[in-house]
């Protein structure tokens, strides 16, 4: 490669503004947060004492509230991820193999349309459906299936439902993108060799589509475990998830050192999830 540096040549310097921006406004703030997580608040002032007290507080403070918040987060996120896959996979499968090609694009756009509402409005919309005098409760009353109105909001069920709604759309996209890349000839070859539909699916289609599932599942896990809005609006105050615990530290307490330590723990969990899914993906390629 010849390198002749001239100021006008975009190819030589074009990379730098984006790298600089990401370093200044992403990497540096993360470093600041890491430093902050070892700081202490003394009389309302933040001093950098390089203490581990904030990490100790995660385990000990408020009778293990924070550990419980992490456990809640993990439970809700894993449950939401599994349910999203179960909802999304058949949808992506139907879209890839049962829907005529000319309808695919428009149906795909239709399926992911509500994806483009903000978290805030989407969660509020679910509140309309789930509240005590909302649509589900009213419909069940009208059908005579229940005698008293039921409020389904303000619960873990509502949070999980909100997550599944959003992430099933995302997973449908990643799984569909994977399914349509599988060559038809593989499936036909299996059928020619005497496999029935179920065997073709189980031994050919499913294994080949797992990368799409893994990518979508990883994205779901990362985005769901870090989300503050859905549990705050739909989950109510019965239990805390980790992002809500973090937000409480920033908002009411202005305890940035503790909030930073909790955030670092959240990032650690996401990193572990990434390593696990990356390892899985590699194994499947072999």
């Amino acid at each position, binding site marked *: 490669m010849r390198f002749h540096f001239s100021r006008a040549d975009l190819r030589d310097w074009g*990379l730098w503004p984006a790298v600089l921006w990401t370093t200044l406004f992403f990497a540096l703030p993360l470093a*600041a947060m890491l430093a902050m997580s070892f700081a202490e608040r003394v009389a309302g002032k933040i001093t950098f004492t390089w203490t581990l007290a904030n990490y100790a507080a995660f385990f000990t403070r408020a009778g293990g509230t924070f550990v419980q918040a992490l456990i809640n987060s993990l439970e809700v996120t894993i449950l939401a991820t599994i349910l999203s896959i179960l909802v999304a996979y058949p949808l992506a499968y139907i879209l890839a193999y049962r829907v005529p090609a000319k309808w695919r694009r428009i149906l795909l756009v239709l399926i992911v*349309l509500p994806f483009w*509402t903000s978290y805030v*409005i989407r969660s509020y919309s679910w509140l309309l459906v789930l509240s005590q005098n909302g*649509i589900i409760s009213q419909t069940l009353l009208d059908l005579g299936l229940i005698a008293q109105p039921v409020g389904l909001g303000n619960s873990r069920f509502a949070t999980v439902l909100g997550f599944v709604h959003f992430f099933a759309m995302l997973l449908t996209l990643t799984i569909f993108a994977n399914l349509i890349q599988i060559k038809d000839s593989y499936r036909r070859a299996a059928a020619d060799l005497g496999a029935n539909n179920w065997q073709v699916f189980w031994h050919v289609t499913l294994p080949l589509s797992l990368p799409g599932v893994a990518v979508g599942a990883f994205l779901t896990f990362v985005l769901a475990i870090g989300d503050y809005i859905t549990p705050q609006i739909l989950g109510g105050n019965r239990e805390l998830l980790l992002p809500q615990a973090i937000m409480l530290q920033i908002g009411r307490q202005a305890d940035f050192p503790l909030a930073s330590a909790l955030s670092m723990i959240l990032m650690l969990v996401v990193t572990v999830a990434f390593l696990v899914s990356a390892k899985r993906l590699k194994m499947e390629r072999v």
Partner: protein
Amino acid sequence: MRAQAKVIRWTDGVALLYFALALLFIFLPVGSLILFAFQDGLAPVPPFKGPTLQWFDKVLHNRRLMEALWNSVLVGGVSSLVATFLGFLAAFSLARRDWRFARGAQLLLMAPITVSYLIIGMGLQITFNMMGVDRSLLAVGIGHVVINLPLCFAIVYSQLGEHQANIERAARDLGAKEWQVVALITAPMLWPTLLAAYFIAFTLSWDEFVIAFLLSRFDVTLPVVIWGLLRSGLSPELNAAGTLVFAISVAIVLAVELLLWRGRKAVANG
């Protein structure tokens, strides 16, 4: 294909049923949002009475909401422009030069995708605090560039192929200066991609709440105002505001879709 279409299997019925149920699930919340925005009454719950446009009228005359709407347009418009521009520069430079640390640079540029908005927002809040910078719409915009830059970069990078590189080479051989190559060859060839990246970034900024919440103070964006209104519970006015926000997002997404569709058609015909 035709022979296959004639065979109707029972599984097709199951597939159709599943598809219909999935669509119901997907559209139930947003459908209720829109329907009860037209509710003639104080509670956005069944039974439906109406329709009336009074709540839209109320939203459009709500000064706080309209100011926030303008702020959202401003933040989204400018931050998406910056994100698309920086993303394009980086993608072009990475695609056309053999950087020794190309892999590392890509990892850095894509890293913000894996970090929760809450953490990105809080990190910026802490950093701005330390530097004595006040919270403002500018701070929100900076945060939105951070979250949209990876997407814009990835979208543009995926569309930069050998095809354009050859035409660029031809232009250079014919004496075009470097800026002319970029401005007259690369950018025009990429314009559907660039517009798509811009509008996707705009929609994400338009809908974003946590970063805007943490980094703004007096001037706030639309999701932040709506968040504040949530405290007073369900109301048809909130439905109307939400419907407007959703309608604008959908209009943009459909525009992008049309753009990409026409782009593909042009490629197929050309």
